[in-house]
């Protein structure tokens, strides 16, 4: 049972959070202009790195705020969490 740092509520147990997968995948400006292939990539395709990963989390049983985090998918360690309006953290 990990502790996850909610940017507002502080450290809480992971069961309080909802996982949102890869971060910084924006909804296309004009889906109608996309090919089926491009649309499929938005809908179904997400990165799946072994190591550092920028992801979205939501403190669903707490303040219900979504936020971003850089987490290592091997160690599960959180490197940092940042609010949606913070600039994208650098992922190598």
């Amino acid at each position, binding site marked *: 049972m990990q502790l996850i740092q909610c940017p507002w509520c502080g450290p809480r147990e992971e*069961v309080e959070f909802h996982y949102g997968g890869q971060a910084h995948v924006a909804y296309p400006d004009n889906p109608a202009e996309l090919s089926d292939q491009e649309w499929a990539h938005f809908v179904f395709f997400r990165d*799946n790195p072994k190591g550092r990963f920028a992801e979205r989390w939501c403190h669903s049983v707490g303040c219900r705020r979504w936020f971003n985090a850089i987490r290592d998918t091997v160690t*599960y360690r959180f490197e940092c969490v940042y609010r949606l309006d913070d600039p994208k953290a650098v992922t190598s």
Partner: protein
Amino acid sequence: MSPRTPGADLPEHPDFLWRDPDPKRSYDVVIVGGGGHGLATAHYLAKNHGITNVAVLEKGWLAGGNMARNTTLIRSNYLWDESAAIYEHALKLWEGLEEDLGYPILFSQRGVLNLAHTLQDVRDSVRRVEANKLNGIDAEWLEPDEIREICPIVNTSADIRYPVLGATYQPRAGIAKHDYVAWGFARRADEAGIDLIQDCEVTGFTTAGNRVTGVQTTRGDIAAGRIALCAAGHTSVLTDMLGIRVPVQSHPLQALVSELLEPVHPTIVMSNAVHVYVSQAHKGELVMGAGVDSYNGYGQRGAFHIIERQMAAAVELFPVFARAHLLRSWGGIVDVSPDASPIVGRTPYENLYLNCGWGTGGFKATPGIGWCLADTIANDEPHPHVAPFSLDRFATGTLVDEHGAAAVAH
């Protein structure tokens, strides 16, 4: 099931299993991933197609990934025609596998019960049973009293939180001993002259145009005529090297066993509603799978609260389990696709074949996918059973949605 002498029933492994060869410079076929799927593919390449200049590359120890960690459930009662076809093909192979491999894989067809706890569970169950029947798969709908006859320890009383309203039953479903299965395939492949190369991690690929000409590994470069990726949870690591995007996410999946117990549980019981699936393995240990952890993870471990929840559900459904003991818990990495169906077949590289996204279905599919992937590699044409699982279905929208259709996992 015949009564066992405690613990004495596991047959001995053979005196010789496989060589420990160094990689050659070049192979006709290189299979990346020495798990069940990779080893089965190697076996059928040799057996069905006479292709033996083959290397299976394993970054760790053979069958040390999900093959060594899964709960060995084998069934084919899937909803959609496409899924039913490949899993039933596998089940038919399971039924003859002991002879084929000349290895005591302990395939025990004790049947699987998929419990229904809500009216919608019942509708979904009947739908699946009727579909299975029309697809030639053995399936029945059972009322609670019939469930009690098959598995007396299931709590079918009406006063539990989610009463058991009935169950689907596939009598031909069963379990097998995972190491024995993997080692059986490995030994046959080795006998056929196929090189099983351990501690050999793929670190890159060499390509020429739309062909992959070879792999770079921790044990040197290896040229390859055709390459098949059978890396399950690590597939993305490989496809990223090739610049291919594959819609799988790797998640932790936990499992656990109890100590050895006298026979008490004659079949396999699965309940999605309360997330339990449990069987009693050959030596007498209760083997259970838990739910998939929500986040991506390559750590081969999950969070313990999932196991605690699992135990609560288990004791609800099987009150006699109260003082069984959790002996060992562990985690594997499942590669989950958007429609919970596998992704198999061609890639943008003409001589590279993909096999991933099996999620929790990988073990039960082992001989089936090995057979079909070998056929696909040998004929450079997707076998009919894997054709529906192509990568491009996500663009066309012709998914095989085992999620959406509320089919059962594991």
